């Protein structure tokens, strides 16, 4: 099974939820009328696309229908798909890995979204690609967070640089970079404690970690990944805004897409903030990580 097929199967629930319903609405409807638009809007909102974006998408459909004198409701899903694809971008956004020299990545997000798990998965994948990876246990706040990352290090055969609980996360990042240099590692991934985007002191702490990384490796972090939980509703937009303005997020990881949650808020985020989604999480195991390809994502979303 190629990765596209696996993505498709991983997304099958998402797809059935969104497209299955839209398609049945459309085939059941017979003609394009207000009820049909209402139901389309409902379906989008139920997928956590959000009010504004859902209204935008439906409005877009209305205009297209009027402009192109469309009368066949079965054309609507295709139109919707095109518009979402346009918003999400056509290209896969790859991780920014340096070809020569050290790549530093920083992983941020609110509590419990799947940062540490994603780092474990990333370590596995990068290692499989032949890269030498080092992890920095920068969550020095949550009880046993360091041990959690350590377990992932053992699972994937990757070293973890750790300090005591309560230590300065910037110092952990600093040490990890030094260790990466002396051990000849290619990639350092810095874990951070979950924090609500509304806590300014904690956001300051995050800025400091970023500054130290930048000072030690000019131009780094090469990736600042914001992890979002697909189960989250419209607050994800707030999270994306706040983390972006604090640490300049370069990409989004959308986790827990193996649930029935639709993760539709990503469309709203792409529309408002233009941050690409780079990776999706579809389970708790090391291999449950996929690149997010906007085109294929939307295809998978709308393919029967």
């Amino acid at each position: 099974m190629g990765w596209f097929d696996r993505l498709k199967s991983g997304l099958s629930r998402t797809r059935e939820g969104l497209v299955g319903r839209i398609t049945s609405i459309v085939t059941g409807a017979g003609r394009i009328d207000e009820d049909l638009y209402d139901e389309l809007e409902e379906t989008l909102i139920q997928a956590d696309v959000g009010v504004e974006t859902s209204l935008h998408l439906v409005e877009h459909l209305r205009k297209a229908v009027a402009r192109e004198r469309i009368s066949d409701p079965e054309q609507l899903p295709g139109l919707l798909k095109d518009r979402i694809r346009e918003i999400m971008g056509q290209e896969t956004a790859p991780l920014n890995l340096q070809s020569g020299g050290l790549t530093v990545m920083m992983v941020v997000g609110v509590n419990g979204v799947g940062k540490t798990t994603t780092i474990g998965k990333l370590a596995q994948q990068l290692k499989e690609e032949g890269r030498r990876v080092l992890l920095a246990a920068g969550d020095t706040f949550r009880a046993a967070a360091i041990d959690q990352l350590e377990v992932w290090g053992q699972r994937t055969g990757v070293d973890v640089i750790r300090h005591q609980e309560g230590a300065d996360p910037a110092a952990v990042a600093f040490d990890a970079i030094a260790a990466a240099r002396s051990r000849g590692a290619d990639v350092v991934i810095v874990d951070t404690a979950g924090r609500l985007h509304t806590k300014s002191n904690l956001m300051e702490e995050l800025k400091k970690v970023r500054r130290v990384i930048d000072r030690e490796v000019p131009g780094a972090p090469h990736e600042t990944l914001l992890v979002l939980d697909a189960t989250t509703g419209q607050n994800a937009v707030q999270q994306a805004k706040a983390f972006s303005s604090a640490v300049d997020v370069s990409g989004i990881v959308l986790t827990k897409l193996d649930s029935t949650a639709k993760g539709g808020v990503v469309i709203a985020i792409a529309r408002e903030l233009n941050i690409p989604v780079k990776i999706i999480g579809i389970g708790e195991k090391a291999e449950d990580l996929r690149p997010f390809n906007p085109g294929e994502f939307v295809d998978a979303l709308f393919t029967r």
Partner: protein
Amino acid sequence: MFENLSSKLQETFKRLRGKGKLTEADVSEALREVRLALLEADVNFRVVKDFVARVKEKAVGIEVLEALSPGQQVIKIVNDEITALLGGTNARLSIAPKPPTVVLMVGLQGAGKTTASGKLSAWLKKQGKRPLLVAADVYRPAAIKQLQVLGQQLDVPVFSLGSDADPVDIARAGVESAVKQGRDVVLVDTAGRLQVDDALMQELENIKAAVHPHEILLVVDAMTGQEAVSVAETFNQRLGIDGVVITKLDSDTRGGAALSVRAVTGRPIKFVGTGEKLDALEPFHPDRMASRILGMGDVLSLIEKAQAQFDEKQAMEMSQKMRKAEFTLDDFLQQLRQVRQMGPLDQLLGMLPGMGQLKQLKNVKVDEKELVHVEAIIQSMTAQERRSPDIINGSRRKRIARGSGTTVQEVNRLLRQFEESKKMMKQFAGMEKAMRKAGRVPFGPR
């Protein structure tokens, strides 16, 4: 994004200002905006639909209180309804008659179960209980260690059989260990799981069968979106949850998930988590949550003030009428409506000295559904009939029943209730006079 909606809402309500009664069009227009506000707050789509339909039914035709604009009136109704739907303050765990009480913590991955378990154990300790934490999350790396660290910080013992044991065995052995150690509450921290993961949901059912928990608490992240309904429905169907803990309310989420979960399970929200510190666990306040979800704090406090003034004025008028025994069916209807907003009449009067024993009170209890019929019946009467119900003979009764789509029995019952209230009012007015002499005014400002 939301600022837009909020100001749009204000606009709509400004336009509504200055009308006497809420018409269907007024209400529909206002509720369209309310619907968007609730959806934007992540209240589940289905829940919003039901809610809006119900509020519409209640709001149309409602007399706009004198001190409020019609728009404020709609907000008030919406806010009251959300508060009612969210239920009461309920920071309680049911305690088993024979210890230990077993509490099972369940929910999705990352919801905050472990932290909530730690916080609950601290809260129980403060209540003089001797809790035991049981580490039954064998899946997430270092989850057991996390609970052990929390236990250490809180000085609460943690039971574990390591991560190779079966969670069902761990739970069972944990309870046995509590009995031996004389711990009176057992908090079982389980692994996070998707509600669609059949095998792991089965595991929870097995744990439930093994330890017969007295409380199964569903832990829900306040930032959850539309999925909250499916999560709550499935966990409730499979386990029968007893209560809900909402976590991460210290974020800036509007928290519509709280309303969704409550609406589909009917289970009380018992606690909310408001921070990472282990004492950041609070009782749930439905009124605060309602205004948070609605997102119109300023408007609401304005309404509150206006309402207080209005209540005072109306109470005076009513008590005047009572004293003169001018109480009519119109007043009766108005009063029933008001009572519905204030709380049950019998409770209200029961608080006054000497009133609790009045036997008539038993018959004036207001049933919410009945109120709709009562309204219909009174509206089918002529103005003269409302003023002097004595003239309502058999044929009039038949006509009224037909006109209101009710039965003669119902009309009879209403007239009887009215007579009883009138009698009671007289009695009450007499008492009021006596109390006034003694320097107490029962119907004064509350």
